[in-house]
């Protein structure tokens, strides 16, 4: 024990350094690309800056610093003219590559007329932007995997939500290892929980059983879930793909859930979540769309409760963990790789680490709690059993 360690009887102090002012290196999703395809420049506050997103005449989406290098005009208030965004102040025309292409009232463009252009990726209906404080382009092996269902008629279209949260984005990432909060905050009932971190991915394997005390959308004659199987992985610091299969009494239902975010500044981030559902023989046409909408509502409810927690909780660098908690420290060690220069990424941040939780005790405790909830509802509900 070193001198700074506290004795077992001392009051435990919460320790927290200020949130980093540096922003994670990696691909960040800015939402559905469709949103940016209306012929207008869009303003996005991200990475402590203001960006402009616009679609050139040829369909390409580009992201530039919003502030014009001429006299500081806000390009996101300008207009798209051909393949360029035109500044509202003096009409300088900026191309997606960051170069000034034309100044209509001048014979020629001056030297050094170049602004920051952010690498983009337009994939599976989503627009991504690459952030790197060191200014390097994305390495070829740092990719966002393709999502098969996103471009298939056998799946519904994206249902997408976004909301801004007053907290540092580490809070949302922490949740990938936080098994217990899935019961208390998301009304899920995990029975198997394992994390694997390796390279730039952080994976969560979770199997869950039904939660008959907490699924208002499953009342009446609607199909009831008997459990779920989820394989969720962060690909880089901010983009999670969750392959989620719900087992219903009527059969299995496949879905893909996206949970992603981008930082606005050190203490604010935009949280986004999207969902697609596979159409199946028993789940065709509007039934699949309805199911997707129902699931999205349920997920939204869970996130709203997350948000309530995040906006009121303390930042904590020294969480006190019990044996039934997940690997918070090792997750943060993995997450750190995105906040240091590439040359400073240590093997311990990227080496494979596995953590399988023992769910025996949590399952026992939660079964009792579910039973108690059901008994309370049964006692309180009117005879016809309307949702309460």
């Amino acid at each position, binding site marked *: 024990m070193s001198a700074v*360690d506290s004795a077992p009887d001392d009051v435990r102090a919460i320790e927290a350094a200020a949130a980093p002012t540096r922003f994670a290196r990696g691909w960040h999703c800015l939402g559905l690309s469709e949103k940016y395809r209306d012929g207008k420049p869009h303003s996005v506050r991200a990475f402590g800056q203001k960006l402009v997103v616009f679609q050139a005449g040829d369909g390409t989406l580009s992201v530039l610093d919003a502030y014009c290098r001429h006299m500081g005009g806000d390009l996101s208030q300008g207009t798209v003219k051909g393949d360029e965004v035109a500044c509202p102040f003096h009409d300088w025309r900026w191309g997606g590559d960051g170069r000034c292409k034309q100044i209509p009232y001048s014979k020629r463009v001056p030297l050094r007329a170049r602004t920051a252009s952010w690498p983009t990726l337009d994939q599976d209906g989503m627009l991504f932007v690459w952030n790197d404080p060191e200014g390097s382009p994305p390495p070829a092996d740092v990719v966002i995997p393709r999502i098969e269902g996103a471009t298939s008629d056998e799946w519904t279209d994206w249902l997408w939500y976004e909301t801004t949260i007053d907290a540092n984005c580490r809070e949302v990432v922490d949740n990938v290892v936080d098994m217990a909060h899935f019961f208390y905050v998301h009304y899920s009932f995990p029975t198997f929980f394992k994390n694997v971190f390796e390279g730039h991915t952080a994976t969560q394997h979770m199997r869950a059983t039904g939660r008959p005390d907490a699924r208002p959308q499953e009342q009446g004659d609607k199909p009831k879930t008997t459990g779920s199987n989820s394989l969720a*992985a962060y690909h880089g610091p901010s983009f999670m793909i969750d392959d989620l299969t719900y087992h219903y009494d009527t059969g299995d239902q496949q879905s893909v859930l996206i949970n992603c975010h981008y930082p606005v500044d050190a203490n604010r981030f935009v949280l986004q979540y999207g969902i697609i559902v596979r159409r199946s023989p028993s789940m065709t046409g509007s039934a699949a769309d309805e199911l997707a909408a129902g699931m999205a509502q349920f997920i939204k409810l869970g996130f709203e409760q997350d948000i309530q927690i995040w906006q009121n909780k303390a930042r904590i660098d020294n969480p006190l963990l019990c044996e039934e908690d997940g690997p918070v420290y090792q997750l943060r060690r993995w997450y750190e790789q995105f906040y240091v220069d590439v040359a400073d990424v240590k093997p311990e941040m990227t080496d494979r680490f*596995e953590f399988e939780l023992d769910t025996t005790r949590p399952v026992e405790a939660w079964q009792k709690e579910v039973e108690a909830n059901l008994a309370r509802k049964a006692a309180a509900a009117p005879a016809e059993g309307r949702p309460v």
Partner: protein
Amino acid sequence: MRVDNRLTDGVPMRPLACDRCAAQVLVRKSSRQQTSVQWNSGATALCAELEGAEPAFEGCGSLRDTIREATLRGTIELADGGGGGETGGPGRQLM
């Protein structure tokens, strides 16, 4: 970087070699069901099951068997004391 309070106040990670490929990893078990495995690049290079595995791959089966054996033998103790062998052996200061 900060260290998990469960490692400093409880049982640390212990070295263990896979019976099949001899990959050296660090292992900790808080109970029969709970398992932590820390790999390094040398170990992942040796493991035949990890090679070319899908990202969904949960872990090496041979290593899982090795860990189960080691737990029964008491080489890897359980932090909750539920079976397993001696505590405080070599490797106490790891991680």
